[in-house]
């Protein structure tokens, strides 16, 4: 029986749970922080000692936590790359820009349990010697910013933030910075530029790796809201215990945002890799199935940047057998477990955890036109292929959707999409805007061809012009 597994949503789902600090404290809030701050150096057999901060970092490494912002990069690894010898301050930024279409998990946390995030942040900051941290929150989250602002006030008043936190001598403050309404502010280096008061132009890497040259050219950690909440639970339960949740490469729990043509769209927390697409879409505990008399057509598995799956598609993945041996197997996409590794092995990504379900009422040309319009609007415009390619694709698709397409448009569209990704652009937006085009054109080519054929049949003059 598939079911949710609540860690982050545990309190949020309790009736009467509210955002004020008293409520959080009544539910065991800030205990993990107290535990972290009380850690003592542990003597090693070789006579050295491991300090409390390093102990927390190790726990996070042991936990196997992978970033929940999109790329699924190991959190422990990210922290280990921080330049701790530069003599410069280390900053931590919570990425609360949540803008990937279909994603609405960070907002749940911020609106319903802001102190959970703040506690996770304080622990992460303590573990990394950070004394100044920021929450970069999406511009449209006006209410969320207000709630966080109040929660930070409460935390300061209670001695969890500010100077000499809980008498330990540790100082930290957290500031909120509201974005101005651009998707690209979610890309970590664009976010850093924006935080510095500039246009959010993503930075070139090398040399601007945030762990070395981040905010104000200082070492900087950028973590997603959900990632930082998970840190609190890792300290709470121990890294090894956390790693027992989920599957070996995909530990812990994860928030999944299910939207589109399902009966119960919403945000659910699962043990990573323990639930399949079929469960998430059809089970009563999750999406609850499609609307009556509808057939599943497509699944976008990780925000609109992710490559689409077609219903009935067979995917090949490598699995680990009981004896530990790896073997390759083919399965229906619906049987794919929802985790970073499986979805990427199947040729897409679980990205921000946003699953968009499309039934047979969806016109895939319209779907892609809509997605491309979004990317053309959101490209920051800094680098040539993405700036020009994203709008070109959107214009072709606008035409196709209006019934003004020609057969040759499809090959052209695919060729334009092929000219953008693969490291040709400054940031991964290049991939984000071209992957949906590439995958929809390939997987739903019949629908696109039918649409342009219908046009050609109606307007032979255009088709003729094309042949010429």
């Amino acid at each position, binding site marked *: 029986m598939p079911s949710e597994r609540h860690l982050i949503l545990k309190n949020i789902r309790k009736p009467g749970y509210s955002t004020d600090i008293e409520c959080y404290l009544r539910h065991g809030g800030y205990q993990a922080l107290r535990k972290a701050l009380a850690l003592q150096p542990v003597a090693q057999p070789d006579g050295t000692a491991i300090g409390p901060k390093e102990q927390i970092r190790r726990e996070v490494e042991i936990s196997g936590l992978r970033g929940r912002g999109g790329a699924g990069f190991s959190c422990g690894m990210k922290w280990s790359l921080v330049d701790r010898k530069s003599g410069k301050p280390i900053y931590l930024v919570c990425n609360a820009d949540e803008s990937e279409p279909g994603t609405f998990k960070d907002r749940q946390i911020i609106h319903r349990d802001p102190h959970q995030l703040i506690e996770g942040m304080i622990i992460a900051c303590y573990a990394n010697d950070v004394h100044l941290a920021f929450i970069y929150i999406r511009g449209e989250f006006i209410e969320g910013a207000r709630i966080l602002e109040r929660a930070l006030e409460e935390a300061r008043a209670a001695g969890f933030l500010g100077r000499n936190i809980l008498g330990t001598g540790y100082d930290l403050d957290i500031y909120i910075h509201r974005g101005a309404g651009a998707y690209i502010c979610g890309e970590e280096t664009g976010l850093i530029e924006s935080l510095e008061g500039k246009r959010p132009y993503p930075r070139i890497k090398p040399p601007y790796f945030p762990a070395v040259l981040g905010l104000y050219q200082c070492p900087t950690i950028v973590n997603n809201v959900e990632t930082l909440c998970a840190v609190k639970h890792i300290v709470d339960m121990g890294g090894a215990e956390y790693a027992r949740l989920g599957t070996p490469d995909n530990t812990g729990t994860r928030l999944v945002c299910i939207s589109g043509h399902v009966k119960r769209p919403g945000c659910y927390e699962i043990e990573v890799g323990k639930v399949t697409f079929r469960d998430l879409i059809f089970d009563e505990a999750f999406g609850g199935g499609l609307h009556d008399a509808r057939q599943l057509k497509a699944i976008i598995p990780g925000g609109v940047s992710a490559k689409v799956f077609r219903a009935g598609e067979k995917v090949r993945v490598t699995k680990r057998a009981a004896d530990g041996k790896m073997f390759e197997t083919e399965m229906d996409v619906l049987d794919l477990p929802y985790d970073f590794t499986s979805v990427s092995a199947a040729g897409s990504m679980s990205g921000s955890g946003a699953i968009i379900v499309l039934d047979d009422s969806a016109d895939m040309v319209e779907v892609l036109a809509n997605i491309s319009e979004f990317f053309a609007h959101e490209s920051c415009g800094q680098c040539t292929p993405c700036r020009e390619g994203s709008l070109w694709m959107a*214009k072709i698709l606008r035409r196709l959707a209006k019934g003004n397409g020609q057969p040759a448009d499809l090959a052209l569209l695919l060729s334009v999409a092929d000219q953008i990704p693969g490291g040709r652009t400054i940031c991964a937006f290049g991939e984000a805007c071209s992957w949906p085009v590439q995958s929809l054109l390939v997987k739903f080519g019949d629908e696109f061809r039918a649409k342009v054929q219908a046009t050609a049949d109606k307007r032979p003059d255009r088709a003729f012009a094309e042949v010429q």
Partner: protein
Amino acid sequence: MKQSQQSNDPLASPPGMISVTVDGRTVLVPRTMPDWQGRQVPTTMLQACELAGVTVPHYCYHPKLPVAGNCRMCLVEYGVPALGPDRKPVRQPDGSLVIKKSPRPAIACATPVSPGMEIYTSTPTVKLMRQSVLEFLLINHPLDCPICDQAGECKLQEYSVEYGRASSRFAETKVHKNKQIDLGPRIMLDQERCILCSRCIRFTRDVVGDDALGIINRGSYSAIAAYPGTTFDNNYTLNTADICPVGALTSKDFRFQMRVWFLKETMSLCASCGTGCNIVIGSRENCIYRFTPRQNDAVNSCWMCDYGRLNYRWIERTDRLTRPGGSKLTSPDWEDAINGIAAALKKAVPGHIAIVASARLTNEELYLVRRLAQFLGAPTDCVPRSGPADNLLLCADRNPNTKGAQLLGIAASPPGVNLPVFARLIRNGTIRSLLVFGEDVTRHGITADDLARLDFLAASDIHTNGTTAVSHYFLPGCAHVEKRGSFTNVHGRIQRFEKAVDPPGLARPELHWLRELVCRVTGQSMGGTVESVFEAMRAEVPAFRNIAWADLGDHGVATHG
């Protein structure tokens, strides 16, 4: 055998060097090279390719600007030595390295090289990447080459020919932007032509220190703009028109005046201040159309100031002196003028003659003045000129050759202190003869009444002035663009310049008639070319002793002054 392999091992380079392979050619490159500010930073692929003789096409990269990495024109493929499980490089049986090709390309302008790296700049993939960048740049480009000032020196045209595809696949409506934006007093912007390389922004912000330009809107609608409510007006704005790879930024002074391919280019210097920025003069049919900066890292990098750049229109003024003249000259003839002056000077008594020579004259000309002064026993000075300096190039000394005048002993110390002394000595009858080369002393403390007391006054200049008007003899001189020679800048760097246009009428370079005068007056002989005068100068003046004319090259050398 083993020995030679060892020495060819890309991982065993001499200290400070890195061995990389560019399109199959192995080269040793320095581990670090200067960045835009001259700081040593890890050598980039683009620099390494340059050293290997391979040009990587680029738009946004400029050696004197911080790297932006936005145009993506410089994408290349590359590989690095593969590492085994022991983190040691894997080798072929013959000892050569196994190279692991990166699945992703890299921008050559920003990616540092590493030992053993192989860079591939002409693979089919690289060619396709360039082609697609060009296609993207062109789809919304207005293609108004026929009316665009940049045509002929446009990187979009050049690369399209070299790397682009022949026909357009774009069937949509182009993005339209503003084509005539008056950015400031000297610069016009056509937003449609702009390829958003951000060179103009970086130059203005990072080199000039004026955060005046930025990008508004986003995506394909992005456009360059001055900050709302402000105009783009600093002393360096015209450099943005030079570094703009396309015709988006144009100089109001130059736009629509002349097709660039008709321009004759002459290596010269700016003469508007003591910095001596290196320039190229663009002229056609004896008419000057523009000054543009010429790179000289010891002086002006790649820039020049707007003040100096636009200070050339006076050359065509109608009040130029075009023939010798003066109250004692009967016919406007050079021979008669030189004879008359020489005869008068031969009669001049040491102690009763003085010379004022402009610090706008060349080193060679001032040297001839020095010879004359020494022979006549005449004290000398020049006229100081100053204005506010700025934080980049423009210096307070607005003469191009004050330093030369000092090294040659023409300028008093400080320059100009002798002028009131000369005035006094004229008034009390001590000074009876005065020579003025290239200045109007009536504007510098020696009045027309003073001049009227003299037994003899000879002057030269480019335009008629208060001094030439009352001279017994006056001679028409040349603007520096009309002659050859050298200046010594405020930092003691001696630099040469070539002649771009002919002087008007009978005007002749000062060097020619000063030499005649020297020979006539002193009876000595001397070659008539700039080179021979320079030779004589260096034999005599310690500051120039070890410098031969040929040493000056295109960028000059430091004097020992």
